[in-house]
């Protein structure tokens, strides 16, 4: 793998990791909000 390919490899991995991290944070917040909403309706 050339240095350019390695840099591209890392860039892609980093961007995917960021998207996965963002999705995880989103779902943590969503499940918290769902819990509050469901508790409120009972």
């Amino acid at each position, binding site marked *: 793998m050339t240095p350019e390919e390695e840099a591209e490899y890392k860039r892609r991995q980093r961007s995917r990791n960021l998207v996965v991290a963002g999705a995880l944070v989103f779902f943590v917040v969503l499940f918290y909000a*769902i819990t*509050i909403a469901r508790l409120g309706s009972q």
Partner: protein
Amino acid sequence: MSLLTPQPMPQPSGATAMPAEWRDFFTLTKPRVMTLVIFTAICGLLAAPGSIHPVLGFTAVLAIAMGAGGSAALNHWWEADLDAGMKRTANRPLPAGRLRREDARDFGMFLSGVSVCLMGVAIGWLAASLLLFAIIYYAVIYTMWLKPTTPQNIVIGGGSGAFPPLIGWVAVTGEITAMPVLLFAIIFFWTPPHFWALALFVKTDYAKVGIPMLPVVAGERVTRNHIWIYTLALAPIAIAPWLIGGTSWVYGSISVALSLLFIALALPVARRNAVMGAGVPMAEEKRLFKFSIVYLFVLFAALVADRALETSNIIGPGLLAGGVF
């Protein structure tokens, strides 16, 4: 073709050594199709009698969108070899070699599983069961089984697009009644004239890869007859929510006007004998296709507006509103 084994597609070398871009995973979810899914799901949700907490309403729409995205990814996985043989789809992530085929399958399975669990836990298991059935309907019954085997594939495919408003409605009410079934039926009967009108003036490569589309298999005359029959069947179904008392005259008058216009535009298409590529402009067919999009959007928007007007007591309820519908 075997039901459980996708046809082999040669994996490009080199390109798959790189991790796929997240955008390619996003492309697998067919974002453009998803906008219609989200719109009709929101309409089903807002038109349903009763109320839902905004967070839960958002979650229901998100789960429906994720389910649609998951089944679309499974569709990409299964049809990668067909996509590679068609100009329109050859640049999709799988045939272009930007994504491994098994990654698309795993992504689709994961998204589908999460969407059903999310719907079940947050909203209810009836809506989750419908979502699961919709995913199986699109990914297995339509994509793997009937699309490659019958020229009525557009009719069957329309069923998968018809689930979102039904699920949206059930997410609010928790039960299946006549009204959400009618919303399902509207999209089901709307899909054939919509897509076959398009098929009359846009040449696709489906025949090249062995997909039996009606205009190719049965000819343009039969396709025009089918457009006419489904348009006539659609009209009473679109007006039915008003006829059974599920909506007020506002939706009723809009649906009658739209349906009459649909029939008026479908009639010249049904009577013509113009053939694509024969140097004849396909103006009538293009007009019908464009109008069909407006038709669906306005019809569903009218349904929501009708409910909003009724809720704010600007108009009276439908004859039987508040009852079983």
